[in-house]
């Protein structure tokens, strides 16, 4: 499982690099535009070990941000089930906040929160919570009539129960969305580091970009891919366990 994800990623990465080399060859570009394999290898030797703690740093922020946004999305998803004005209002607010590109909002966030961990976390969470939110709203606002009938009818329905029923019935979809949005948490963290922080792999990418050093960026992307794949594989494994356990009970 873990192996498979890694193999697939490495294969895709090699495809991508191959494509770049092809373009380089065909258009006869210099090493400045697209680095040579030797340069990539050399750069890799130099920065690989140095980038690993950066990626781990980023990954840890991403994981916290991811958990945070699962939390946020759950809450908003639950609130927006309410068909009254508040539910609809919260939903609109959630949508509108998302409509603001992070690059425009980030300065305001940095003004308010400074450039510490909290800004990074917030931005990571903001970027990945929206897909979660959309799915959660979709799932949590659709009744499962044949199961809910009894509870509604007998006055036993509580919102916790309603959420549990709908989540349970859509377990597979939830697992897909949650594990999938992990990559977005990673993206969010990297973007926030790119824009404003002074640590993490996004920060390293920004420096490499200032130096027009595509070789470094390619190494960074490789590491990001590897670790994201691992996180993804881990979540999928977890998801499978949860689903199996629940299905076993049922």
């Amino acid at each position: 499982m873990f192996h498979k994800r890694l193999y697939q990623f490495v294969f895709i990465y090699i495809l991508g690099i191959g494509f770049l080399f092809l373009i380089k060859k065909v258009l006869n570009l210099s090493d400045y535009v697209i680095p040579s394999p030797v340069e990539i290898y050399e750069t890799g030797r130099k920065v690989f070990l140095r980038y690993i703690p950066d990626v781990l740093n980023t990954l840890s922020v991403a994981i916290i941000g991811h958990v945070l946004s699962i939390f946020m999305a759950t809450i908003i998803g639950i609130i927006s089930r309410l068909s009254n004005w508040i539910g609809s209002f919260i939903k609109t607010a959630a949508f509108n906040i998302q409509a603001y590109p992070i690059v425009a909002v980030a300065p305001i966030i940095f003004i308010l929160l400074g450039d510490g961990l909290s800004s990074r976390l917030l931005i990571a969470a903001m970027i990945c919570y929206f897909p979660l939110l959309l799915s959660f709203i979709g799932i949590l606002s659709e009744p499962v009539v044949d199961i809910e009938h009894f509870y509604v009818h007998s006055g036993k329905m509580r919102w916790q129960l309603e959420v549990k029923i709908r989540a349970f019935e859509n377990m597979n979809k939830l697992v897909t969305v949650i594990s999938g949005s992990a990559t977005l948490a990673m993206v969010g963290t990297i973007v926030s580091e790119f824009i404003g922080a002074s640590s993490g792999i996004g920060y390293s990418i920004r420096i490499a970009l200032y130096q027009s050093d595509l070789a470094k960026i390619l190494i960074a992307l490789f590491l990001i891919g590897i670790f994201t794949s691992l996180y993804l594989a881990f979540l999928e494994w977890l998801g499978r366990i949860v689903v199996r356990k629940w299905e076993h009970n049922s």
Partner: protein
Amino acid sequence: MIECKNINYKYHGTQYPVFNDLSCKIDEPGFHALFGLSGVGKSTLARLIAGQLDGFTGKIDNKTGKIFYSYNLERLPGWSSVGEHIAKVTPVQNKNRINEIIESFGLSSCIDSGFSHLSLGQRNRINLARYLLQDFDFLIMDESLANVDEATREQIIFKIKDMYPQKTFLYISHSVAEVSMFCKNIIVLRSFQKSPQSLTVLGQDDTTGKSVERKNLEKTMLEIVNVS
């Protein structure tokens, strides 16, 4: 105790009404039936009485108290065993009835299973069981035992009548013999083109210990078939 007066109802987007000036009533506790051809409107009437549909004209008078509506497609959530679910939804004062019901419904072997691992008839029975454990006054059983075998069904009906002599049941079933045998009144629902749209036939109201004469039963059955 429940009286429907001059009900008119038509589903949105359909050509013909389901009910055209329908009147019927159930005026005593006991085990009653709602009978009629498939598609005649039994489930619709049940939902009207249970207050789950609106947009009808006429009047539904409910003097019984709390009405429950159970139907055969209901499911239990999947996260724990049906036994746990039943225990959870049963009010304290009815907890002592759980075992009695589970046993007489032939469900003892199922209570540790998840709902999705049960056979159809087992699902029917588990679902009905949890309704019987509520504090209801009037219970509509919309084909609630449709997928259960006849012997078990008979046993269940006797049990219900034994346990809840003061409550009112409206049993929807397609078995003429069964409704004739076990029910007090059988409301036979007919096409909206017929007037009156419903007629009430007196059933044999069989209970444990009492025996029904074959001749009487056949008379009731014939009567039902004739008015359908």
